[in-house]
């Protein structure tokens, strides 16, 4: 099972949209995909067509095993599990991650976790094959946070594969263009792909869907396909 943890380096970077679009892009390549919402705002399901009234999820159950009825499947075959309405501490979240790995799926299935920005990645029980995508935007705040994170990673015994993934990149903005150039040249752990700013990502969410489905000829579609291909290659290297 291939585990990808996706979290924003700060709130509002678009991590949940990336989880949903990446899940669909992988699914379109006939991969088995399970997306699990670990964020208490519990909005991952909206991208997969879950109704707004549906609020329950795994946090509303005493154990992961009793929450199996909360798994949903979207029109493309992506299996997803909403967070729900109750809060969950780090121990409970780690228990959910551990239990998800016991699901009866094939070895090459993808397990995508939508992680909250406020939770430290070090809090999760990660192994050397786990991939963490920390989502960043091309702005100066993220620049400062990236270098702060690099210092943290430098000091902790890093066991997982950490990457910074640029989302919402606007090449028409001088600052963003400057930052991208500097990051690509000097910043360690920058993912070799980035997601360009594309309005279809927002628009497709309004239709309770994802850009990969709604706009097959969009820039976003191509970007998410590229991201999925890169991850498939990375995972193959791990295998």
């Amino acid at each position, binding site marked *: 099972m291939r585990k990808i943890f996706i979290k924003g380096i700060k709130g509002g970077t678009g991590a949940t949209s990336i989880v949903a679009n990446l899940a669909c892009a992988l699914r379109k390549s006939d991969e088995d995909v399970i997306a699990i919402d670990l964020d208490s705002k519990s909005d991952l399901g909206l991208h997969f067509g879950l109704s707004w009234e549906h609020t329950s999820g795994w946090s509303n159950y005493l154990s992961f095993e009793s929450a199996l009825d909360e798994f949903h499947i979207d029109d493309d075959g992506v299996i997803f599990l909403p967070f729900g309405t109750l809060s969950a501490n780090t121990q409970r979240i780690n228990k959910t991650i551990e239990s998800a790995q016991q699901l009866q799926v094939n070895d090459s299935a993808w397990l995508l976790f939508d992680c909250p920005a406020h939770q430290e990645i070090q809090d999760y029980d990660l192994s*050397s094959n786990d991939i963490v995508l920390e989502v960043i935007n091309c702005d*100066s705040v993220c*620049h*400062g946070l990236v*270098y702060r994170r*690099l*210092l943290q*990673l*430098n000091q902790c015994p*890093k066991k997982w*594969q*950490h*990457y910074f993934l640029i989302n919402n990149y606007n090449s028409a903005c001088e*600052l963003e263009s*400057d*930052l991208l*150039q*500097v990051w690509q*040249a*000097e910043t*360690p*752990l920058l993912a070799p792909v980035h997601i360009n700013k594309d309005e279809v990502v927002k628009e497709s969410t309004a239709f309770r869907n994802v850009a990969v489905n709604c706009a097959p000829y969009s820039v976003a579609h191509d970007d998410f396909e590229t991201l999925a291909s890169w991850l498939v290659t990375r995972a193959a*290297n*791990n295998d």
Partner: protein
Amino acid sequence: MNEFAVKKSNILTQYDIDNLLNRFGGKTSSYIEIVDVQKNNQIIEKYPLLSDVSRSSAMFDLSMHSK
């Protein structure tokens, strides 16, 4: 006297790339990464926050290798 027309272009030709490979090594490599260090430094100097981060982080070795 001959006057030669000079074409100014930022696009590298295969000849330019071969020259760079010969000069800096990696002749057998099919991939070459060109970094404009001077321009990057100018960008960093342009923004006070970036200069601040650059100065502070220069004290640490941030080189990390992904698997």
